[in-house]
């Protein structure tokens, strides 16, 4: 018989949805999405994007919420315990352990990136980078700040480190105050502010017109066209489908282990189907409407199509941290607009950092019976210590190595495992009952078959494509400078140590639970 365990609960339904939206909405909504859309066929990208949302994103969101609510009912806030419920096999808890290891490893570098957004918000408000005339010089400013090089802008990594400490301190404060007192309160403040800032910035961009009088073709309409004009011939290109599926995967923050943990604090009568759909739709509101309007559109209006293509090719950070600061210098109230842009990214990021720490928090609280204060000290303390190599070895590819294995490949692998466990080993009949129990609307029956067949097939396609395209190159360190090889091995050593460490903790927690049930 399952033991009755008193666990924290969300104080309100809207608080739960905002917290889940805070987990889903991250930097990728505002930086990665517009770059992906512009690079992969513009409007044509949106067709596979919405297909992936319907057959992979929303089903995964429902499955994770259902797994989480069921886990919470049995006193499990982490996927290791939840997977044991789905599949009574000794391996299940180790597969579920991936849902604790992955988010913690992602948090090691994500917290540092979020700190950059806070710093750049401050630098915008104080006009610190105002006067830098070229994007190349802005790139030097960013590298100087990150400690990659010493230059006329920054002589040490100290400012970046201070903002890292501030971001980590804020995360600690929120996590320490628990699910309803910390995370829910943060979401209720940060999410409305994020949407308010996002709408303000989108309206500002849409009213830019053609800001450079000598270049009338550089205008907002051409900027929107860059993201939205369809190139139908590119729909036959498999890479577009892969890019769109990848974007849906990252944007909803599925398979990070955070959604099941958040859902484990739901009440029995809370609605999985409506919660999942509300979260996905708020995320799409932020991504497609706000994210698709702000950055790329402004870049085209100021730099023109050719230069924006080059900016997009160089990646999302080039757009957010180098190109946009050049624009803030040229518009009225630029310091304020710049500060708001980076504050928007900060709100998007900090809510995700907090979510990424939660599976590990749940492991110690539910699995070992630790107090919240003790757990917060251990988890955030470990996060502080283990993020040091990310900060100091940034230029040696330490962050990129972690990001590929845990933040890209690991997520797809975990999602596939989770879907197979839920739809096939637990069984779709029982899974469907969990999803539809207490639902405020009739979930279309077709999703029974989508989750059982299409979602795992789609995930298998993504995983196989990445495995063929990128994994061999990564394993063999193609393109890695000889002086960076040791650091890459260091990153791999850290991941393997964490993997075994969490594996051991999960085994101990599982053994303790067995003893409590059958003394």
């Amino acid at each position, binding site marked *: 018989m399952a033991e009755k365990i008193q666990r924290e609960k969300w104080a309100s339904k809207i608080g739960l949805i905002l917290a889940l939206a805070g987990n889903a909405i991250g930097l990728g909504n505002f930086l990665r999405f517009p770059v992906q859309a512009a690079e992969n066929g513009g*409007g044509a990208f949106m067709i596979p994007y919405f297909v992936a949302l319907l057959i992979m994103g929303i089903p995964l969101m429902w499955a994770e919420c259902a797994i989480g609510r069921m886990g919470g009912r049995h006193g499990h806030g982490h996927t290791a315990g939840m997977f044991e419920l789905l599949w009574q096999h000794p391996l299940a808890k180790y597969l579920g352990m991936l849902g604790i290891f992955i988010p913690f490893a992602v948090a090691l570098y994500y917290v540092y990136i979020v700190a950059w957004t806070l710093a750049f918000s401050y630098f915008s408000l104080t006009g610190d980078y105002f006067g830098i005339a070229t994007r190349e010089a802005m790139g030097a400013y960013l590298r100087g700040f990150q400690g990659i090089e010493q230059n006329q802008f920054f002589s040490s990594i100290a400012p970046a480190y201070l903002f890292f400490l501030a971001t980590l301190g804020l995360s600690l404060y929120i996590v320490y105050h628990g699910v309803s007192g910390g995370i829910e309160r943060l979401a209720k403040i940060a999410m409305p502010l994020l949407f308010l800032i996002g709408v303000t910035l989108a309206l500002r961009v849409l009213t830019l017109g053609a800001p450079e009088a000598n270049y009338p073709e550089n205008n907002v309409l051409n900027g929107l066209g860059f993201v*939205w004009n369809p190139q139908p011939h590119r729909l036959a290109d498999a890479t577009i489908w892969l890019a769109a599926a990848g974007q849906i995967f990252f944007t909803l923050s599925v398979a990070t282990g955070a959604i099941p943990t958040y859902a484990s604090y739901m009440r029995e009568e809370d609605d999985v189907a409506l919660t999942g759909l*509300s979260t996905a739709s708020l995320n799409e509101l932020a991504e497609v409407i706000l994210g698709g309007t702000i950055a790329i559109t402004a870049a085209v209006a100021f730099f023109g199509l050719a230069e924006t293509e080059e900016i997009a090719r160089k990646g999302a950070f080039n757009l957010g941290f180098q190109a946009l600061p050049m624009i803030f210098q040229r518009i009225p109230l630029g310091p304020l607009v710049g500060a708001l842009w980076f504050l928007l990214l900060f709100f998007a990021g900090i809510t995700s950092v907090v979510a990424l720490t939660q599976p590990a928090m749940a492991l110690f609280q539910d699995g070992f019976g630790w107090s919240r204060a003790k757990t917060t000290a251990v988890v955030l303390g470990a996060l502080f210590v283990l993020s040091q190599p990310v900060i100091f070895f940034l230029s040696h590819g330490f962050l990129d190595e972690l990001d590929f294995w845990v933040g890209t490949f690991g997520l797809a692998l975990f999602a596939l495992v989770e879907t197979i466990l839920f739809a096939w080993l637990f069984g779709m009949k029982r899974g469907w009952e969990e999803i539809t129990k207490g639902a405020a609307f009739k979930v279309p029956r077709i999703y029974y078959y989508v989750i059982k067949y299409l979602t795992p097939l789609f995930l298998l396609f993504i995983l196989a494509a990445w495995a063929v395209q990128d994994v061999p190159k990564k394993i063999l360190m193609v393109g890695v400078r000889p002086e960076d090889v040791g650091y890459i091995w260091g990153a791999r050593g850290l991941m393997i140590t964490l993997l075994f460490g969490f594996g051991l903790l999960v085994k101990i927690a599982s053994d303790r639970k067995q003893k409590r049930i059958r003394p």
Partner: protein
Amino acid sequence: MTPGGWVLLALSWSCIIIVAAWCLAKVLKRKERL
């Protein structure tokens, strides 16, 4: 911006706004009942 671009933008934006508004209305309505 081509007509095709406008169509895709309008369709995407309106679908997302309608679904988000419908979901939030349902959530708030449920809250009232409880």
